[in-house]
């Protein structure tokens, strides 16, 4: 325990431009005054300020490596070292800068570079912080709590339904635009946290993020409300999102489609204290094809774990139910979920936090697309320092 704590503390100390206390005040003269006694010290002290000396840039690295066995497919076993996340942050007074550059190995074995986050935030008060840039979309709990940095996650992968855009995720994990969040304290009733975001929203290609060109005039609106209950670690939230996905033009008539008005609602309940890890989330994705019908997709998952010292065994069932007629965005012939009606994914595993900077995970997964199951065993080492 001591070694782990020391190593984590050392990682803070060893970071470039470490934010250390500026030891600017001289030691007080004569016998030091006890804290309990009203102190009287004549020594001059520096003028206090909200923005102390430059605290330097935070640099953190997160990544993982994995071995997988699958019981189907031509290649059944593989090693992976596909994720490296470079996290930068800098604070000065009420302004906070943050960026996250993610290097990711794709199915083609090419390494792609994504700027996952690039945001500037200004803190007005506990009730209002505004930010601009590219951020994690504030929906549900899991998505923006864990995101990249598998070290912090319990499982080896995100839930399928909230995977990243380029991995077939049904909800936009990133937003480019502006947002505000804040918390209102309610005394014994707990607190209310809100998040409001307006951004570019989805493009015709749902796997892309509109980083530099919106591609449409309509903007995505996302709202999340969360009650942080007086029970320590227990919170409940709801969220809603509205967007218009542009029409898709394609030489193949089967792939062309009109605009789709997309509305999403969701709810989540979370308890993460006293060794208990419980996350339950559910969503309804309502897509209305311009000049056509409406299509509902339901998805949800429950992640349960209990920590025994450094070990946390866990279980996560997840279920997705697509519309019978097929969703117009995600279930086109070339879409990630084409010709699928239901998806049931069940993961069982154990996470071992060997060091604060290193987590080892052993996981068995069974994912069934309708009646075609795929079992796999994954061993992952996730790190961060």
């Amino acid at each position, binding site marked *: *325990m*001591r070694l*782990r*704590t*020391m190593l*984590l*503390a*050392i990682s*803070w*100390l060893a970071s470039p431009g470490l*934010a*250390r*206390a*500026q*030891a*600017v*005040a001289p*030691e*007080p003269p004569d016998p*030091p*005054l*006890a*804290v*309990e006694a009203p*102190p*009287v010290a004549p*020594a001059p*002290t*520096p003028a*206090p*300020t*909200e923005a*102390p000396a430059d*605290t330097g840039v*935070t640099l*953190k690295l*997160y990544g993982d490596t994995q071995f997988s066995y699958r019981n189907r497919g031509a290649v059944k076993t593989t090693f992976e070292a596909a994720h490296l996340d470079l996290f930068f*942050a800098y*604070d000065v*007074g009420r302004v906070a800068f943050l960026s996250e550059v993610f290097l990711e190995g794709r199915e083609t074995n090419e390494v792609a570079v994504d700027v996952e986050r690039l*945001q500037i935030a200004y*803190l007005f*008060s*506990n009730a209002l912080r505004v930010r601009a840039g590219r*951020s994690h979309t504030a929906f549900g709990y899991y998505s923006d*709590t864990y*995101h990249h*940095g598998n070290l*912090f996650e319990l499982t080896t992968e995100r839930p399928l339904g909230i995977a990243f855009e380029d991995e077939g995720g049904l909800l936009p994990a990133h937003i480019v635009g502006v947002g505000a969040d804040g918390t209102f304290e309610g005394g014994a009733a707990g*607190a209310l946290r809100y998040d409001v975001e307006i951004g570019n929203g989805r493009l015709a290609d749902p796997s892309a993020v509109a980083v530099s060109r919106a591609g449409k005039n309509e903007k995505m609106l996302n709202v999340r409300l969360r009650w*942080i209950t*007086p*029970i*320590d*670690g*227990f919170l409940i939230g709801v969220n809603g999102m509205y967007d218009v996905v542009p029409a898709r033009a394609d030489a193949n008539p089967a792939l062309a489609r009109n605009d789709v008005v997309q509305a999403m609602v969701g709810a989540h309940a979370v308890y993460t*204290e*006293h060794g208990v890890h419980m996350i339950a989330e559910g969503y309804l994705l309502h897509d209305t094809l311009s000049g056509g019908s409406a299509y509902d997709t339901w998805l949800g998952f429950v992640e349960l774990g209990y920590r025994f010292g450094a070990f946390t065994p866990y279980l996560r069932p997840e279920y997705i139910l697509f519309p019978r007629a097929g969703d117009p965005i995600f279930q086109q012939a070339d879409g990630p979920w084409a010709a699928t009606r239901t998806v049931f994914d069940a993961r069982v595993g154990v996470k071992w936090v060997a060091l*604060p900077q290193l987590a080892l995970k052993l996981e068995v997964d069974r994912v069934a697309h309708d009646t075609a199951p795929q079992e796999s065993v994954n061993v992952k080492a996730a790190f*961060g320092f």
Partner: protein
Amino acid sequence: MPKRILATTLALYLLSTAAPAGATDDGFFVLCHASNPIAQLAPADLKKALTGGTRQWTNGAVVQVGLPSSETAELRFVADAVGLSAQELLSRVQQQVFKGEMKRPIVVRSSAECAALVRSNVGAFCVAAKGTALTPDVKPIPVR
């Protein structure tokens, strides 16, 4: 079923409100700037301030966490005060910084450094031993 839910909720509430042992009498205090109007911190409020739940004090100063370094008694005290192990506390802080929910803590390597930090930053708070020398612009706050 409703009785079970009620019983579970009640049990969670009692667990969450149980006073962590040793939170107030381990020879340490939280230090903050004298201009900060808070007179004491409940463990739940301390936890919020430590993990990004509170970003600004009531006097408008931006919260700046001063985190004890290494396996110090100060770190154990503050972790114990909020009902976590030292490792859990550091891990949560790391995750909250990664999320962008809180400013990066300033590492204080001693109680004297904690006092110096608080003197120079009106929003800073950290843990110091009771014997630490203080100046009039630094005040101790009990955790209870």
